C-alpha cells in the first residue's frame, strides 16, 4: 500500500460512515412511509386510492437524481432551503418509500382471503383482522424485499455525491482531485467496498426469500 493511499484512508472511512448514515436514515423513513402508505392503500376504497397511486407513480417514475437536484437546487428558489445531507436523505426516502409501500401493499394483498373471512367469522373487527391476522403473516413476506431495498438505497446513495454530500464516493473523488495517481486504486477500492456491502445484503435477501416461501 503506498503512502498517499494511507493518507486517504481516514477520509474514506469517514465517507463510508456517512454512506451508512444517510442510507440508514433513508431506510428508516422509507420503511415508515412504506408501512403508512401501503397499509392505507390496502384499506381505502378505489377512489381514495387514486391520489396515493399517482404520488407513488410520480416518486418511482422520476429519476432519483432529478428529484435530488430539485430538492437541493430547486426548492431554495421556492423559499425552502435544505442541506445537502437533508436533500439526499429526503430524495432517497421518497424514492425508496414509494417502492416500500408497494412491498407492504403487495404482501397484505397476497394474504389469502380465507384468513380475512375466518377472522370475520370469529367476530374480529376490521382493524383487529388487519393487525392480528393479516399483518403478522404479511410481515414475513415483506422481509426479503425490504432487505433488498436497503441494497438499492446504498447503491443509490452514491448520487448524493453529486450534490456535495461527502459520502464514500465523494471522498474518493476528493482524494483523486488532490492526487490523480490515486484514480485507479481508489475507484477500484470504491467498487470493492460497495460490492462488499451490497453482495451479502442481496445474498441475505435471496436466502430469506427461499427459506420463507
Amino acid at each position: 500500500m503506498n503512502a498517499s493511499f494511507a493518507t486517504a484512508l481516514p477520509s474514506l472511512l469517514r465517507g463510508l460512515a456517512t454512506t451508512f448514515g444517510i442510507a440508514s436514515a433513508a431506510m428508516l423513513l422509507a420503511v415508515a412511509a412504506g408501512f403508512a402508505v401501503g397499509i392505507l392503500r390496502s384499506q381505502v376504497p378505489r377512489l381514495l386510492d387514486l391520489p396515493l397511486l399517482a404520488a407513488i407513480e410520480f416518486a418511482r417514475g422520476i429519476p432519483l437524481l432529478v428529484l435530488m437536484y430539485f430538492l437541493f437546487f430547486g426548492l431554495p428558489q421556492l423559499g425552502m432551503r435544505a442541506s445537502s445531507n437533508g436533500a439526499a436523505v429526503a430524495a432517497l426516502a421518497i424514492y425508496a418509500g414509494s417502492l416500500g409501500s408497494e412491498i407492504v401493499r403487495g404482501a397484505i394483498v397476497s394474504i389469502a382471503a380465507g384468513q380475512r373471512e375466518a377472522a370475520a367469522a370469529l367476530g374480529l373487527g376490521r382493524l383487529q383482522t388487519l393487525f392480528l391476522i393479516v399483518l403478522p403473516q404479511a410481515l414475513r413476506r415483506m422481509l426479503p424485499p425490504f432487505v433488498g431495498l436497503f441494497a438499492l438505497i446504498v447503491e443509490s446513495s452514491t448520487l448524493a455525491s453529486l450534490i456535495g454530500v461527502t459520502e464514500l464516493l465523494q471522498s474518493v473523488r476528493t482524494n483523486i482531485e488532490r492526487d490523480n495517481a490515486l484514480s485507479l486504486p481508489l475507484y477500484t477500492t470504491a467498487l470493492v467496498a460497495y460490492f462488499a456491502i451490497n453482495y451479502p445484503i442481496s445474498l441475505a435477501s435471496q436466502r430469506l426469500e427461499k427459506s420463507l416461501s
Partner: protein
Amino acid sequence: MRDAAPQLARGFVLTLEIAAAGTAGALVVGALGAALRVSQSRPARVAATAFTELFRNTPPLVQIYFLFFALPEIPGIGPALRLPSVVAATIGLILHQGAINVEILRAGLEAVPAGQREAASALGLSRFDQLRYVLVPQAVRISLPALGNNVISLFKNTVLVSSIGVLDLFGAANDTIAQILVSAELFITVGIVYLVCVGLLGALFRALEKRAALAR
C-alpha cells in the same frame, strides 16, 4: 428558458439514443450471460456468475466513473482504453442493467417446467434447438414484466451520464441552469418529460405482456 429549448431538445434526442443503445446492449449482455449461466461448461457458468454479481451489486455511477476515469490510468494498456464520455457512460449502463437482465433471464429459463425440456429432448431436438424453439420463447414470456422494469430503470439511469459531462436532457438542463439560474421550473419541466417517457414505456410493456399472454 425559451432560448434553452434547442439545447434541451438536442439533449433529449441524445437521452433517447443512449437509452436505445443501452437497452439493446443490455439485452444482448443479458441473453449471452443467461446462456452461459445455463451452459454445461463450468468455467463459463462461473465467469458469467462472477460478472453478474459484480455488476449488479455495485452502483452504476461508480462503474461509469471507473470506466471513464480509472481505466485510462491502467499502466501500459490504459491509453488505449480512453473512451469518449458518452461511450463510457453507455457501456456503464449496459454492464449494470445487462447484469440484472442475466439474472432475470436465467430465472425465466429456470421457471420453464422441466417437462418442456424433456419433451423437446424426447422429440429429438438438439440442445440448441431446445433452447431456441422451446425454452427461450417461454422464458422471455415469463421474464417480460421484469425486463420491462429493467428497461425503465435504465431509462431513468441515463441521467447519470451527465455526471461525466455528457449533455443528455438532464446535462443540458443543468448547463442551462448554470447560465440563466432558473432551476425550479426547469427541473419540474425536465422531471415531467422523464415521467411521461417512463409512463409510455410502462404502457408499452403492459401491451406487450397482454399480447404475449393472448398468444399462449
